[in-house]
């Protein structure tokens, strides 16, 4: 199909041939040159800088930007975005704040995809990619998307809800150029529609199909046929309704896979009948390109040896749904020398983490999830595991660690051993828990992290913390962009330290901490530089929030009540963000915009 640039070219050439061609003005030449140069500029930060140089640069940049990134869907309206950027091929939209994932935000708060897809349907006919995070997406939105963009190639939905398998059926059947359909941690309604059967019969361009979050059965025979007619398929992540026997059948059809989500990794038969079990080990051995393995949703550990042949090549392994013990982990991890990303359950215990530290010298990212996510349960991992990891995995850049007990010493050790840390998220699950050996607050540990990890941009703190911890963050956390605080601090000073000390702060989420109106005021100089501020169950008053709203007209200040709350003036959550628009009109009744 002809593209807009081609038409322009044709007109220019036609002008030359008929003698009507006129020399362009110098400004025009400059703009043409600039446009061609800017085509190579992909980083949005660079592009933002370019657009500030002067008006003609602004125009040139706007015409050449093909990747639109909107970090807060309410910061700008669809109309404004479309008017400025006319030739967009790919859109990233993010909606709800992260704390909504933990049921802290009442449902139906907002972040609707509908106004966006409606506007783009008419203005971006060449749209190829849509990436949505924490947005509310309906089946009708998906239907409209499928109908409106003939060149559509990639749909990635992360932590979204509002749609079901009927919406997926529309995408599968109408997006003929579809290469990527990635559904990651979404809530997908079971409309009892066989969406897998809706892909084109003649063959697909599918490169990536990820549906491990779908909590309903799929038509396996149709999936098998789909895999057989998708020669470009490299990434396949199955849901837990696919048994290991079925996995086998898929793997032998697609040995070219690089990323595999293994489904339930368990047998559907209660009593094994018929033939012997398939040779799982051979199936894995045949996948010579496999680098990323996940799934194991209902793992029967007996089957674990099947994956041994691929371990040596794995760069990413996700065991975070696999209820395995120390020995079972050891049997696998001892082969994984190239591993860079590792997600695991704490069922493997400190000893399991020691095994990881001993083998995985290339580890960049570690996430340890709790199998029992309650505050006062037995904690199988502790400072022992963290210390071991810090000593063995010196290239670590990102860590998320859930535990019941921790010490400052281990955190300090990590700050010194892993100087490349960019993301440090420690969740001591018991609220206000001190260092369990010294009894002291965890201030010194987190202080060491901000002091020693000079590249740190994301931090999540927990345990017993005084204002001192915050003073450290304000003093040393000069690159921190995202900060997550819960049940921490003594007084307003805590929040003040951070708001006054961290110039790069973009996203600040705080719950259940004793920060009040005075602390809120201390951030007035910075709020326009931030994507958002979330404060729930703190010591704010309505007047305090109103003051902020009055002082900063470019900020949308939302106070959110419990749906059950009788007191119309009381509120649980302050959520505020910069915006170019007037406050949104789609807010539900329990949200008051000041």
């Amino acid at each position: 199909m002809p593209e807009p640039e081609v038409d322009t070219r044709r007109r220019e050439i036609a002008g030359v041939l008929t003698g009507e061609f006129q020399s362009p003005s110098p400004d025009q030449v400059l703009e043409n040159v600039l446009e061609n140069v800017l085509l190579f500029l992909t980083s949005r930060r660079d592009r933002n800088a370019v657009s500030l140089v002067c008006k003609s640069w602004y125009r040139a940049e706007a015409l050449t930007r093909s990747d639109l990134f909107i970090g807060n869907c309410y910061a700008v309206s669809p109309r404004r975005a479309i008017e400025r950027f006319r030739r967009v091929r790919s859109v990233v939209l993010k909606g709800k704040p992260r704390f909504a994932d933990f049921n802290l935000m009442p449902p139906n708060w907002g972040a609707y995809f509908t106004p966006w897809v409606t506007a783009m349907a008419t203005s971006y006919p060449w749209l190829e990619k849509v990436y949505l995070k924490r947005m509310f997406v309906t089946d009708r939105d998906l239907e409209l998307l499928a109908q409106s963009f003939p060149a559509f190639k990639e749909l990635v939905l992360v932590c979204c809800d509002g749609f079901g398998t009927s919406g997926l059926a529309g995408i599968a059947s109408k997006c003929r150029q579809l290469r990527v359909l990635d559904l990651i941690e979404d809530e997908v309604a079971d409309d009892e529609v066989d969406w897998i059967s809706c892909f084109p019969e003649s063959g697909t361009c599918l490169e990536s199909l990820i549906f491990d979050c779908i909590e309903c059965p799929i038509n396996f025979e149709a999936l098998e046929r789909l895999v057989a007619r998708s020669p470009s398929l490299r990434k396949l992540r199955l849901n837990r309704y696919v048994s290991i026997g079925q996995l086998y059948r898929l793997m032998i059809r697609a040995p070219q896979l690089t990323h595999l989500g293994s489904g339930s990794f368990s047998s559907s038969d209660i009593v094994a009948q018929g033939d012997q079990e398939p040779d799982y080990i051979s199936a894995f051995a045949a996948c010579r390109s496999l680098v990323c393995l996940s799934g194991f949703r209902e793992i029967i550990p007996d089957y674990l040896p099947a994956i041994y042949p691929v371990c040596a090549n794995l760069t990413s392994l996700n065991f975070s749904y696999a209820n395995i013990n120390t020995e079972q982990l050891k049997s696998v991890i001892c082969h994984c020398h190239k591993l860079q990303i590792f997600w695991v359950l704490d069922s493997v215990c400190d000893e399991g983490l020691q095994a990881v530290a001993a083998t995985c010298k290339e580890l960049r990212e570690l996430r340890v999830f709790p199998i029992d996510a309650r505050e006062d349960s037995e904690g199988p991992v502790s400072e022992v595991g963290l210390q071991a990891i810090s000593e063995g995995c010196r290239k670590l850049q990102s860590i998320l660690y859930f535990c019941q007990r921790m010490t400052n010493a281990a955190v300090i050790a990590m700050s010194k051993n892993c100087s490349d840390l960019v993301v440090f998220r420690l969740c001591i699950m018991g609220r206000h828990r001190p260092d369990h050996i010294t009894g002291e607050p965890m201030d010194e540990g987190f202080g060491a992290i901000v002091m020693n990890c000079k590249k740190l941009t994301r931090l999540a703190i927990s345990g017993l913390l005084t204002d001192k911890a915050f003073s450290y963050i304000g003093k040393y956390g000069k690159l921190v962009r995202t900060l997550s605080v819960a049940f921490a601090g003594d007084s307003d000073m805590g929040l003040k330290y951070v708001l006054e000390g961290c110039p790069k702060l973009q996203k600040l989420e705080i719950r259940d901490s004793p920060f009040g109106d005075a602390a809120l005021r201390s951030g007035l100089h910075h709020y326009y530089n931030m994507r958002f501020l979330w404060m729930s169950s703190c010591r704010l008053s309505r007047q305090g929030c109103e003051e902020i709203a009055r002082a900063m007209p470019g900020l949308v200040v939302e106070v959110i009540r419990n749906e059950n709350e009788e007191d119309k003036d009381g509120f649980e959550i302050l959520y505020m963000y910069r915006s170019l628009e007037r406050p949104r009109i789609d807010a539900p009744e329990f949200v008051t915009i000041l």
Partner: protein
Amino acid sequence: MEGAVAYESDLNLKATELRLGLPGSDEAEKEALSGVRNNKRASPDTSDECGSKGSSNGDRENAPATKAQVVGWPPIRSFRKNSFQPKKTEAEAAGMFVKVSMDGAPYLRKIDLKVYKGYPELLQALQNMFKFTIGDYSEREGYKGSEYVPTYEDKDGDWMLVGDVPWDMFMSSCKRLRIMKGSDARGLGCGA
């Protein structure tokens, strides 16, 4: 240590009981022992409820006392939390699927021990699966009256006669089953 021991009310032994703990702390001790959180003052930890009043509005003086579960804490998405609730008690489930071999048969089978409620059901299933019969079991003489004897390998690596230990103990210690034939079975209690 269980605190629930019956006392003769007229003797009032409780008043003179030696316990660890402050006098009058009986209730708190029972709570701590039961391991179940007292949720009376705060909202329960369900995914459907949101914005609990009980999540302390910075009331940290309450924190060291009864720690009720709080909404959205720890920060784990609910589908992850829910993935493991039932599994916890089955953490030792590794041994439930066991291989079954029979002397003379060309290939092995696999069964899930959890499906059976006791030895009679298990033995019947084995007999159906491999088409043979087992004699009657007695503690003294093992399986009398047939060529085949069901045996199992336990956690220590020893081969035991099926039926000697209580069913639950068998379930947790059995690693694999083997239906032994005639001559090999001697010495495991087949015949006198």
